[in-house]
């Protein structure tokens, strides 16, 4: 009987990333007091600045009438207090063993084959390369997204204890690390790599507690995640994420930054997140089109069903998608 992809196939994520929450302090005070960073609502009178139809734009009278309309909006906003210049962001990352065993699979023969493929990869390539790239993305603070751009300095501390004591890695200037290369030498990255590798191999249970001190300047705006609400009503056009008064970032957003390790897609110029179609939401582009046979499903099926192992880089990519987790079953309909 020829092997077919299981119709029900799913992987649990191997990097269990928590939400990140925001605090703030004043770095210039002798004994800095750490306090929560909360979200405020403000209502602003905006200007009409969108592109207008030619009929309106070319008629000064109509244009004036349009511009006079008040563009009232209520939005959520998060900013440091006026006596605080440093944003503190904390989150944790659980590294679970990656053995290639799916969490659900309804075809035992397929599962056995899949596991042998993953075991082959683990024996041949190992997870050192992937671990190094994940470690680099934690260390370079890519996961701060827009907060990274405006920062003066970013200090990172990674600990294995929930209270942040006895840090295993300290990175004094995360902004100095390159976002596009993964071959930088840095003792912090090396230490993180070791931990992540041990965790993925199942040698020990690893839980990393990451804390960033981001110097932004007094009263500066910071950027928590925006909530996606399908039915917002007309009252507020932007809702930010918060939990019990703390502004926060969604774990999905952090996870996307940590797995931004894919430099093996066709004509790669910069790393993108390991996604089945190489999707980058901010660019609205899928970098791994199924036409080129370089998407996850083409590579994965070829590897598992036809024993056609792709080259080294694509092998890393396929495994990175499995470590990310998700539902990969082949529906009978397509």
């Amino acid at each position: 009987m020829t092997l077919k992809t299981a119709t029900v196939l799913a992987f649990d994520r191997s990097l269990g990333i928590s939400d990140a929450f925001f605090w703030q302090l004043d770095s210039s005070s002798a004994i800095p007091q750490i306090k929560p960073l909360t979200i405020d609502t403000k209502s602003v009178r905006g200007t009409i600045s969108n592109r207008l139809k030619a009929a309106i734009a070319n008629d000064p009278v109509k244009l004036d009438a349009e511009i006079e309309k008040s563009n009232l909006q209520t939005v959520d906003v998060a900013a440091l207090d006026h006596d605080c210049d440093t944003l503190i962001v904390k989150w944790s990352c659980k590294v679970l063993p990656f053995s290639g065993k799916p969490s659900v699979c309804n075809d035992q023969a397929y599962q056995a084959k899949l596991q042998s493929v993953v075991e082959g990869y683990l024996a041949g390539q190992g997870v050192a390369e992937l671990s190094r790239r994940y470690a680099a993305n934690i260390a370079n603070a890519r996961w701060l997204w827009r907060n990274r751009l405006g920062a003066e300095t970013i200090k990172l501390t990674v600990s294995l204890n929930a209270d942040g004591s006895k840090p295993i890695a300290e990175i004094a200037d995360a902004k100095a690390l390159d976002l596009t290369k993964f071959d930088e030498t840095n003792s912090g990255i090396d230490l993180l790599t070791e931990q992540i590798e041990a965790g993925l191999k199942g040698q020990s249970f690893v839980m990393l507690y990451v804390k960033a001190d981001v110097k932004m300047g007094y009263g500066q705006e910071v950027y928590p995640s925006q909530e996606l609400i399908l039915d917002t009503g007309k009252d507020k056009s932007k809702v930010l994420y918060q939990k019990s008064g703390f502004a926060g970032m969604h774990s999905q957003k952090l996870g996307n930054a940590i797995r931004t390790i894919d430099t093996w897609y066709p004509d790669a110029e910069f790393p993108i997140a390991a996604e089945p179609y190489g999707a980058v939401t901010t660019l609205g582009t899928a970098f791994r089109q199924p036409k080129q046979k370089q998407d996850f499903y083409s590579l994965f099926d070829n590897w598992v069903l036809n024993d056609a192992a792709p080259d080294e880089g694509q092998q890393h990519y396929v495994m990175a998608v499995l470590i990310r987790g998700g539902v990969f079953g082949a529906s009978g309909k397509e």
Partner: protein
Amino acid sequence: MSHVSHYLLLDRIEIEGANAVSSPLTYGFPAVSGFMGAVHALNRKLVQSGLDVELSGTLIACHDIHVQRYRPHPYTDYSFNQSRNPIKKNGTTASIIEEGKAHLAVSLVVEISASRATSRDIDDDLTTIEQQCRQLVYQHPIAGGSVVAIEAVKLFDNSGEAQIKKALLPAFVLMNAQTDLIDVTQQMQKLNPEATALDALIEVSTLHHEPVPTKMSPSGWKTRSAKSGHGWLVPMPVGYQAIAPQFAPGELANSRNPEYPGQYVEAIYSLGKWVFPNRLPSDFSNCFWHYSEKENLYLFTQKHESQGA
């Protein structure tokens, strides 16, 4: 095989992104099955590691829950906050499947049944087993959410009830409120002999706003609910009822696990109650949820089989 020899307290487990849609009709706190399933998985892993125990019952106490939802205005409905998923191969946004999520802090107390020899082994090795349980709990999702922190994992022998109740504070323990449901049904039947338990369940979720003119305010209003006097009642799913005959292993197409038998079921509802630990029933064993299987019913109950479900 054995009796309850120890209690395992998993103190203040912080769970992120747990499933807040507990059944087709209710939302909020995750279903009991979500916690029982995690305990069952813990049981299997403990047995695999050579500790022959049975985790026979689970007490669920909630410290804090934060459902990911939004309401633009105090008089409108809530809607769930969704996550935006990566785009599809053609660059368009993937369709969004509505899901409700919650962040919560719960404490679980697990009954450990073991033979006499095993329970002696546990006594000899308390800290190692506590450490092992902590790691196993971290490695497994609970109610679909991931565990991000546990304050403490502690084993008590079966005389530690008072200590456990103290450790649970402040929290509310989820209890079965079947008697309250029967009570409300009987109250309703006094006015309407045809009222059923379903009517009572709906009645409990209803607020009646009635005009009550008084001297002070001739146009006064009063809010009445069947709940009042019964404590903090909540409708909740308590199990499943089969609605078709069972399929043999491998017979049902596209089942998740073809090596097990499968069956179509529907959810059954009852009332639950949030109770402060100081007011729990004196018989501590009645606070634990158990599986019970009878004919075509699969229920979560808080009574032992011997006492009748």
